[in-house]
């Protein structure tokens, strides 16, 4: 098991390194734009060259990458080109908010997706299956921002209720802090739940056709025992893979949901940074998101070994 964990870590490192290069290179594909923008708007320096030297953008790309990587290893993600505030400070304030949103959304997607997928598989081609599959298709087709808007609009029209406009910090009111995440997380989780439900259903249907399941039925075991004890664990292995992909989807969806519900997380921070072409902030956020996803995928790989001891690659 230790060897397996080490092997997975070694495989994750090259992917992370390539990802850091992509994060670094992406905003620099068109150098000079942000410098011109800053000079026109804020007059930070005498001329373009002076400003580039001040921001370290005049050095070769390889040197810039090396310096940046070294800073990242020391926990420094640079400063905002506009506010000159450390990116890390702002991320420390915003990241827990996005993590809270994403964690509850992931929990919602599992709690809704897996049981409905199991029910749909066990009652294949029945009324419950039809309703579940139709719901899943709708969940995949409706954009999350539309779901969010409808979730805000309809209660306002019917009952005159709207969600909070301002964000309540944990220190002010812990209960309101948690409650304000419920609706946005639910909406974010619903789209993921649809995909998980479909995959759980498909995988369980396949597992239920195996010979050992037929043997379990022949032994006279109850449906609950056959499905939950003997079949579900094997069916969940691909679902666990998809959960890792869902983390990426939820991270992307949080950008839209935070915008709709005015939640001051990293998603909103990213949108503002992109509008201003604030490259250090864009890099810092992308790096944190990518590192989180690589860590989640590593956790998924390790979970494989728990679910199925035969898996060692």
């Amino acid at each position, binding site marked *: 098991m230790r060897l397996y964990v080490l092997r997975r870590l070694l495989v994750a490192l090259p992917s992370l390194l390539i990802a850091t290069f992509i994060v670094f290179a992406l905003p620099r594909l068109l150098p000079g734009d942000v410098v011109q923008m800053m000079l026109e708007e804020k007059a930070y320096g005498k001329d373009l060259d002076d400003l580039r030297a001040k921001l370290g953008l005049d050095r070769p790309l390889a040197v810039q990458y090396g310096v940046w990587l070294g800073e990242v290893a020391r926990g420094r993600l640079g400063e905002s080109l506009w506010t000159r505030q450390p990116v890390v400070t702002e991320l420390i304030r915003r990241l827990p908010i996005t993590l809270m949103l994403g964690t509850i959304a992931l929990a919602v997607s599992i709690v809704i997706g897996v049981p409905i997928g199991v029910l749909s598989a066990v009652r294949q081609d029945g009324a419950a299956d039809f309703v579940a*599959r139709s719901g899943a298709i709708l969940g*995949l*087709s409706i*954009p999350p921002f*539309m779901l969010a808007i409808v979730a805000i609009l309809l209660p306002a029209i019917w009952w005159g209720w709207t969600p909070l406009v301002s964000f309540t910090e944990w220190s002010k009111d812990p209960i309101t802090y948690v409650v304000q995440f419920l609706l946005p997380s639910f909406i974010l989780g619903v789209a993921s739940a649809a995909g998980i439900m479909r995959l759980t259903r*498909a995988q369980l249907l396949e597992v239920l056709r195996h010979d050992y399941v037929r043997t379990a039925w022949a032994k006279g075991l109850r449906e609950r025992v056959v499905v939950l004890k003997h079949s579900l664990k094997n069916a969940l292995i691909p679902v666990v893979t998809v959960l890792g992909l869902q983390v*990426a989807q939820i991270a992307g969806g949080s950008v839209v949901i935070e915008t709709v519900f005015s939640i001051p997380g990293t998603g909103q921070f990213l949108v503002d940074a992109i509008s201003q072409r604030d490259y250090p902030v864009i890099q810092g956020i*992308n790096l944190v998101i990518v590192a989180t996803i690589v860590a989640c995928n590593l956790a998924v790989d390790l979970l494989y070994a728990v679910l199925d001891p035969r898996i060692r690659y």
Partner: protein
Amino acid sequence: MLPAPGALTRAGAGVGRLGSIWRMARAKPLGAIGAAIVVGLLVMALGADWIAPYQYDESIARMKAPSHQFWLGTDNLGRDIWSRVVYGARISVTVGFATVALATLMAAAVGISSAYLGGAYDIVVQRIVDAWQSFPGLVIILSLMAVLGPGLLNLIVALSILGAAGASRVIRGAALSVMQHPYIEAARAMGAGHLRIVLRYIVPNVMATVIVLATIGLGSVILVESALSFLGFGVPPPYPSWGGMVAGSGRTFMYHAPWMVLCPGAAISLAVFGFNMLGDALRDLLDPRLRGGS
């Protein structure tokens, strides 16, 4: 007197073709509904000038509820929402098809070359694809749009780059499977060059997978494009992008005129639903190996 050669047709040929379409529709009713929606969308996109009663930026009457004259109502600037939805279909179809075409080309080139060449090239390419797929789609698109700037062409390029990575993995898998067949070895033994083997034997045999991916991908592209337009990074105004219609004035006036936000939202959902259903049906018919979520 006998009919001229070539004039003879197989008995019931016309009926047979229609019959097989009808049989497929009965076998996959949701796929047939999806196909009907996609055809409707294409008709709206191509015939927008004839279907829409007004121009997309023509100001007529402000904030009118849906009625006989204005089927989906009007917005805060007096523009007919039905006309804007119809012209918006043109934007969605253009972005969708152009993106999928470019992404499929890129994905096929990367996936087939990775499978065919193998070795160090395959390892390096797959690690890059792995790393690329670690990024959430919307985040990478936003970052690309920040670099490329606004505009329809930049949007298509950014969406294509995003979609190509995931699709290349699937096409690589299909190509690897095709390469196990003995006819590939036979082609090599006959002296066929690399390009001939790829173009003559591998590409035609992965086309089913490519078609399924492209159709399913269209739904995803429309979803992402609408989200980008909603955030303000998609198609710039005054072009009536559905996502852009929901954002901005749609959200501002949604309590007073909910049709401004619900109608374009319904259009997005219906379009994505149609492409998803059609893609699912094509997958079941052409390449059931890709089945996993239905």
